[in-house]
């Protein structure tokens, strides 16, 4: 009596994959079905999403399937973006601020690498609130701006100096950096050996 509920599973998978999306190949692997069946499941869910009362849809982007919000609800999303501006910072802005506080001086590209998403707007917000500022330029091509925290940042959080920032769970941070380095090395090895 174990009927596998493919639509439900696909929705879960696509949801958790977020902006990274999933390729047909990945779906085939995870669902353990053939490509035809996987495509069928996708089509099924697509149809369900086309129903009027759904707010999400499946889009195909850069070879992956992703969930996205329906365009006709854009006005409400706009309101969502505009509304919380009053006294609190968004998760995006807080994340960005934390990264800058602990890793300054740092370029936008480096921040985006850590966050995995574009960070133009949070940087703009934080600059506007004078919590961060440009503190110089990176070496090398592009000479990107380097960001750091301001005196106002310290004042605002009641810190005498940056040393007073609470310690990060170092292991997590180390692991993080280590793994990225390994990945590079691995790829590099592959190339020179091929």
């Amino acid at each position, binding site marked *: 009596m174990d009927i596998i509920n493919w639509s439900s599973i696909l929705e879960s998978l696509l949801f958790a994959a977020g*902006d990274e999306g999933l390729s047909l190949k990945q779906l085939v692997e995870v669902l353990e079905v053939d490509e035809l069946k996987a495509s069928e499941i996708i089509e099924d869910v697509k149809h369900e999403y086309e129903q009027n009362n759904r707010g999400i849809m499946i889009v195909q982007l850069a070879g992956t399937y992703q969930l996205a919000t329906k365009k006709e609800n854009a006005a409400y999303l706009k309101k*969502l973006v505009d509304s919380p501006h009053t006294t609190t910072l968004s998760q995006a802005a807080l994340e960005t601020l934390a990264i800058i506080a602990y890793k300054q001086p740092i370029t936008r590209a480096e921040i*985006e690498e850590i*966050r995995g998403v574009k960070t133009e707007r949070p940087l703009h917000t934080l600059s506007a609130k004078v919590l961060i500022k440009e503190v110089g330029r990176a070496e090398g091509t592009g000479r990107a701006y380097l960001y750091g925290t301001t005196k106002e940042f310290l004042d605002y959080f009641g810190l005498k100096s940056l040393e007073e920032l609470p310690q990060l*769970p170092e292991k997590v941070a180390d692991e*993080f950096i280590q793994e990225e380095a390994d990945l*590079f090395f691995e790829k590099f090895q592959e190339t020179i050996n091929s």
Partner: protein
Amino acid sequence: MPYQVKIDAFEGPLDLLLHLINRLEIDIYDIPVAQITEQYLIYIKTMSELKLDVASEFLVMAATLLVIKSKMLLPKHEEFFDDEDHEMPFEEDPRDELVERLIEYRKYKEAAHDLKSMEEERGLMYTKPPSDLSDFAKDFQPQKAELNVSLYDMLAAFQKLLRRKKLQRPMATKIARQEISIEKRMTEIMDELKQLKGRKNFNDLFPYPGKEHIVVTFLAILELIKRKEIDVEQQENFGDIFVEALKEGADVVGYY
């Protein structure tokens, strides 16, 4: 029968005592102090024989147990009850304080157990990071407004980010390793350059912030230079770098 103890599996002396009480099927409200003390001391002895650090708390508890044991041996009931001048004192059991502590600790040990299963349950649910809504933001007016966030909010946000990273990383690497091959990226770059029929800014070849993608792109460009499929040009130090497809290399990529 001497009881075999698991070494190092206890959070502290109270935890060990609770374990002994369970194991020996003792009523927590009527602890046979002599027996439990003996078992407790065996544990401590085993620990030191194995040259494990016996935390001072364990030793303090051993002393406490010995004190209680000796108090229990004092026959003082009769004296009290014969003394008519005294109000009938409700005599304290020397074990009372310990029992109270054990019961209090057991409560939180059970609560910790509940938390553990809640942690597991929660682990079955996956959430997604907020979508990038910058496209929906209309002209954003900077204002030095009053803020209502704390340092803690910032740390919480960062923690969330780390957790999310951890969540996404395996997927990113799994996918990336299979899908973004250097070969494929080389073909993509060549297609891009050929379509453009001109030079392209080096930086524009890196549209995605992911390190994986950047590394692969960089290696792909190096390989293309090596195979003389593209030409790279920089007019001054720190100036922009431009990349251009070389005509004769047009269909070489496919052979590799």
